[in-house]
């Protein structure tokens, strides 16, 4: 049995278990509250596992190790920020949000500020963020399948979409809770077991002919290696002059045979093969450190690098609380206290997980320098087991990692599809179970379309972008809405427009600049440090200016948000709108017995 077969078997097993758990979870789901918020009856520990399972996406499972391989210590801010975001959520949002009794983010906005306009506006941003987050998941699924089997990348994206849509169609939130909780533990095993084994292998024979990390000089290939640049062109930084063999296009000129590269930047066209000799310096994708010293030391990239780090901290710390698929899971808690407990559990589950990708990233710097050349650093975790242990054990470890990665795509995508479908079905459609199912199909179709159309970039970067968007739109809305009486719907709309507009235009500009000579400074790829305070300020100033529009019942609403659970102020809005499950069941029963009698 070869590596491909092992990995496919692992992926197949994950898909099968996902189906089975989804089926078990969805047997009793038949009402709208079941599909939206799982009847708000998920215990805190299971909910925390489900949230962590959903949250540890492709960006965490593959992306963090890839960024550590490429950028070194500065990439560690990603896992820190991803975890710290839950602390911010616990501190400012968790319990009051649950007590609001809302069932989606737009519903919360309407409940708090009493404006249908604001509700529609929020719907737009929820769909934006949801789809923006979904696309890299599907693309990474394609990458994983291509790395393992060499199949075209659309098959992986398509498979994930189909499995997710079928599961969500069956039981919505109720079906996926069990699936996601299981997938957290699955993922933890899938990353912890290979890390332990590979680390022991590394300790047993630290060198294995590789270059030690504490060598401060330029990185070099330990042995002769062939690197293939496939679909996308890359721009390489060459740190030292060298000779190599090339087949393809370099700097828009065809290259065949022996090539001399001086120090500098080279543009490598698609479908190019590069043969490096042992001892050649490793050319690195533009923007990453070329020496081990720069990789090892924090903040070695100067003042802009410092700025970028701060921006990332802001985006992740404040963005997590604005992610619709994370928030929707908090609505499934029975009460505010449980919501707080859930968030606290998540903190430790995530902390436990994030130790492992860092170790794998460091190890892959030793064994997989070729990924620095073709820029596919996201594949590091998948390729490392085979590169370090080239025998059956390595193949099995590779299969475990592949299965874990697949679980990551499935759980995150299902959470996103449920949250987007919940919003679309209740805000654009009437909100019956049938509408939810149609919305699921639409969401899946839109996401797969975009995933195939848009060019692929690093999963963590795209995901960081949706964090920036969430931090500049929903974070101010939630924080000010929960803690400040003065917020008005006009202020909220203006703040979200300014914050969201700035992030989106910054992103568009940085994409444009990446095609026309990279003139945009790095602030455009990570703008949260500027956009988040601007959004907050806009909301506060406009709200003060439009003081007359303050909702009349603001005091009652704040009481409801903050009153402790035993006082019994929680009123669930989904039940007010769609009725309780018991009522529905009684209605269905009378209908059934009525038809039975008439027969």
């Amino acid at each position, binding site marked *: 049995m070869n590596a491909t077969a092992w990995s496919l078997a692992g992926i197949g097993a994950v898909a099968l278990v996902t189906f089975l758990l989804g089926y078990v979870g969805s047997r009793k789901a038949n009402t709208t509250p079941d599909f939206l918020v799982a009847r708000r009856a998920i215990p805190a520990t299971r909910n925390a596992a489900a949230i962590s399972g959903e949250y540890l996406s492709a960006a965490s499972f593959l992306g963090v190790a890839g960024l550590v391989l490429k950028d070194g210590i500065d990439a560690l*801010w990603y896992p820190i920020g991803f975890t710290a975001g839950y*602390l911010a959520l616990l501190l400012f949002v968790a*319990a009051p949000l649950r007590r609001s009794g809302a069932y989606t983010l737009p519903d919360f906005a309407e409940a708090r500020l009493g404006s249908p306009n604001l509700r529609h506006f929020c719907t737009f941003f929820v769909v934006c963020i949801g789809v923006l987050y979904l696309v890299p998941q599907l693309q990474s699924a394609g990458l994983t399948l291509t790395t393992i089997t060499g199949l075209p990348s659309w098959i992986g994206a398509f498979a994930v979409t189909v499995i997710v849509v079928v599961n969500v169609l069956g039981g919505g939130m109720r079906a996926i809770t069990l699936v996601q909780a299981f997938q957290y533990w699955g993922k933890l095993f899938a990353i912890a077991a290979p890390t332990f084994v590979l680390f022991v292998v590394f300790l047993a024979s630290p060198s294995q002919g590789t270059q030690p990390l504490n060598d401060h000089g330029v990185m070099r290939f330990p042995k002769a290696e062939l690197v293939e640049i496939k679909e996308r062109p890359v721009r390489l930084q060459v740190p030292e002059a060298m000779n190599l063999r090339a087949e393809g296009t370099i700097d828009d000129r065809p290259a065949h045979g022996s090539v001399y590269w001086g120090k500098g930047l080279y543009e490598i066209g698609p479908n190019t093969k590069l043969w490096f000799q042992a001892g050649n310096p490793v050319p690195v994708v533009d923007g990453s450190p070329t020496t081990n010293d720069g990789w090892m030391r924090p*903040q070695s990239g100067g003042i802009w690098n410092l700025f970028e780090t701060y921006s990332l901290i802001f985006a992740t710390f404040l963005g997590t609380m604005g992610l619709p698929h994370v928030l929707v899971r908090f609505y499934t808690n029975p009460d505010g206290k449980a919501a707080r407990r859930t968030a*606290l559990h998540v903190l430790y589950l995530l*902390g436990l997980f994030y130790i492992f990708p860092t170790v794998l990233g460091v190890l892959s710097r030793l064994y997989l320098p070729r990924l620095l050349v073709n820029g596919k650093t996201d594949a590091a975790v998948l390729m490392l087991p085979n590169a370090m242990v080239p025998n059956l054990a390595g193949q099995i470890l590779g299969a475990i990692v592949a299965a874990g990665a697949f679980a990551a795509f499935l759980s995150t995508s299902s959470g996103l599809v449920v949250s987007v479908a919940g919003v679309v079905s209740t805000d654009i459609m009437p909100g019956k179970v049938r509408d939810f199912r149609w919305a699921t199909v639409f969401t899946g179709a839109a996401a797969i379309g975009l995933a195939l159309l848009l060019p692929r970039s690093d999963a963590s970067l795209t995901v960081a972008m949706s964090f920036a968007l969430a931090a500049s739109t929903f974070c101010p809305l939630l924080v000010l809405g929960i803690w400040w009486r003065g917020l008005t719907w006009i202020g909220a709309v203006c703040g979200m427009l300014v914050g969201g507009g700035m992030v989106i235009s910054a992103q568009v500009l940085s994409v444009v600049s990446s095609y026309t000579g990279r003139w945009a400074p790095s602030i455009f790829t990570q703008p949260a440090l500027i956009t988040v305070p601007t959004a907050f300020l806009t909301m506060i100033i406009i709200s003060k200016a439009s003081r007359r529009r303050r909702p009349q019942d603001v005091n009652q609403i704040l009481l409801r948000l903050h009153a402790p659970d035993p006082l019994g102020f929680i009123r669930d809005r989904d039940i007010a709108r769609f009725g309780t499950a018991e009522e529905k069941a009684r209605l269905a029963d009378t209908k059934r017995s009525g038809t039975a009698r008439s027969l």
Partner: protein
Amino acid sequence: MSRHDAGAPEPAARDQWLGETARKPRRRRVVLADTTKSRGKAMRTLIELEEQTSVGEKLVRDLIKQQLRSAFGLGGLVLLGLCGLPLLFYLVPSLADIHVLNIHLPWLVLGLAPFPILYAVGWVYRRQAERHERDFVNMVDR
């Protein structure tokens, strides 16, 4: 009603019928505080809260202020700590040369240390928030 107790008179009627002197000393439940009275008071506070009388509003405002103070205090502390690290590494590059257990210090500081600290801060906040809420409930329920 079963056949067995059909013949017994109603308790109240029976008391009347027995009269004050004839009643045997019976077991009596003694409660320290009069529950009916305090429930009335709790109800009144709840209604005050709902209807937002000045008393109710003051109570809620105080609770929100308390919660916000702990949230902002702890959140600010964490943000300050996190934001201090990059600046520290930027200003004092020689920190990267310190080794602990043969690993560069910054890797330990960024790769391991934040997670238990974040959990600890979350734990402290949960305890504080729940205590504020318990105090509030006790005050209303008094």
